[in-house]
C-alpha cells in the first residue's frame, strides 16, 4: 500500500482520465434519456482529450510559443526541454472539433427523434415502436 500511493500520485493523470472516461461510457450505455447519453458521449471524448493533453505536459516547461526575436532568430537558443510537447495539443484541436461536430449531428438526430415520437426516453420510444409493429 505504501508503495502504491506514490505510484498513483506519480501517474494520477491516467487515473483521472480513466475514471472520467468510464463515467462517460457508463452514461452512454446505461442512461435511458437520449440527451443524457449524448452528454455521456461528450464526457467520454473529453476524457480522451485530457489524456492526450496530459501526455504533452513536461515538468518545468512552458507553452510552445518560441520567445525569439520574431524573425526566425534564436536558433540553437531553443531548448526543446523548455517547451511542452506541441503535437498532442494540435491533435486535440482536431479531436475537439470532431467531438463538436459529432455533438451537432447527434443533437440534430435527437431533435428529429423527438419530432417523431414526442419523447427522448428510450424505452418509451421502443414501446411506441412495438405498438406500431403490433398493429
Amino acid at each position, binding site marked *: 500500500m505504501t508503495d502504491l500511493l506514490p505510484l498513483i500520485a506519480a501517474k494520477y493523470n491516467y487515473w483521472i482520465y480513466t475514471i472520467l472516461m*468510464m463515467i462517460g461510457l457508463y452514461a452512454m450505455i*446505461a442512461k435511458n434519456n437520449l440527451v443524457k447519453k449524448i452528454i455521456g458521449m461528450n464526457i467520454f471524448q473529453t476524457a480522451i482529450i485530457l489524456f492526450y493533453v496530459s*501526455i504533452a505536459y513536461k515538468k518545468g516547461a512552458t507553452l510552445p510559443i518560441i520567445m525569439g526575436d520574431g524573425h526566425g532568430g534564436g536558433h540553437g537558443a531553443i531548448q526543446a526541454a523548455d517547451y511542452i*510537447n506541441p503535437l498532442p495539443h494540435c491533435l486535440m*484541436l482536431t479531436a475537439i472539433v470532431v467531438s463538436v*461536430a459529432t455533438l*451537432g449531428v447527434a443533437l440534430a438526430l435527437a431533435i428529429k427523434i423527438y419530432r417523431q415520437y414526442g419523447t427522448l426516453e428510450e424505452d418509451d420510444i421502443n414501446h411506441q415502436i412495438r405498438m406500431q409493429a403490433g398493429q
Partner: protein
Amino acid sequence: MRLLALIAVVLTGGLIIFHTGDLPDFGDPNSPASTHLSPYYLEHGEGDTHAPNIVSAVLADYRGFDTMFETTVVFAAGLACFFLLRRKTEPGDKPRMYRHLPTGVTLRIKSGGTFPEEDSTEFRRMDSHFVPHQIIIKNTCRLVIPFIQVFALYVVAHGHYSPGGGFQGGVLLAAAIILYAISHDLRRSIHRFSEKVAALSGSLGVFIYAGAGALCLLLGANFLNYEALGPLLGVDAVMARSHGILIIEIGVALAVMAVIVWIYYNLSSAGKHDEGL
C-alpha cells in the same frame, strides 16, 4: 442492463488502470512522446514556418492535411444538420402572431389567413414566447457584438504569435452572430446572414483551404506545400509558408463561422427557420 453496463465499464476501466504501471510518470520530460518527434518541431518549427506559435505551425503546416479534414468535418456536420432537419415551411401552416407597431395591437392570424409580408414597417412578426421590452438586452448586444467581431479577427490573424487561429476566431465570429440572433430574434439574424450565404461561405471557406493546397500542386510542389506560393507572393520559402498558414487560417475561420451559425439556425428552430431562441 445497468448492472451489465457497470460490470463492462468496471472491467474496461480496470484493464486500463492495470496497465498504467509501465506508463511514464506525469510530466516526465524523458518519455518517448516528448523525446522522439516533438523536439524537432520545437527546434525547427519557427525556422521552417516563421511561426513562433509551434502549435499553429504543426497544426497548419506540418500536419496541415489533418487540419484540412478537421475543417471538412465541421462542414460535413453543417451539411448533416441541414440535411437531417431542414423543412421548407410553406406560409399558413400554423397560426402566427403579428404586432401592429403604430397602435401596439397584437393580432393572431389563423392558419390559411393572409400574412403581411416579412419586411413591412407596420407589422412586426412576434415569436410565440414574446418578451415585450428587450431594449436593454438588444442595445447591450448591439454595443458588444462589433468588439467581439474585431477581437475575433485579431485572434485569426494573430494565430502565428499567440494562442489562437482559425478555429478559435471562427467560433468567436459565429458567437457574435448567434448573440445577435438570441438578443433580437432568429428571423432578423437570418435576414442579415441568410442560410444560403452561410452554406455557400461554409463551402467557400473549405475551398480556400483545399484550393490553396491544390494551387501548390498546380505550381508543381506537393499538395499543401506552401513554399510553392513563394513566387506568387514574392517572398522566400519560409515566409511563403507563414503566409500560407495565414491564408488557410482565414479559410478555416470563414468555414467555421458560417457552419456553426448554420448549425445553430437548424438546431434552434428544429429546421423550420421561422422562430427559435
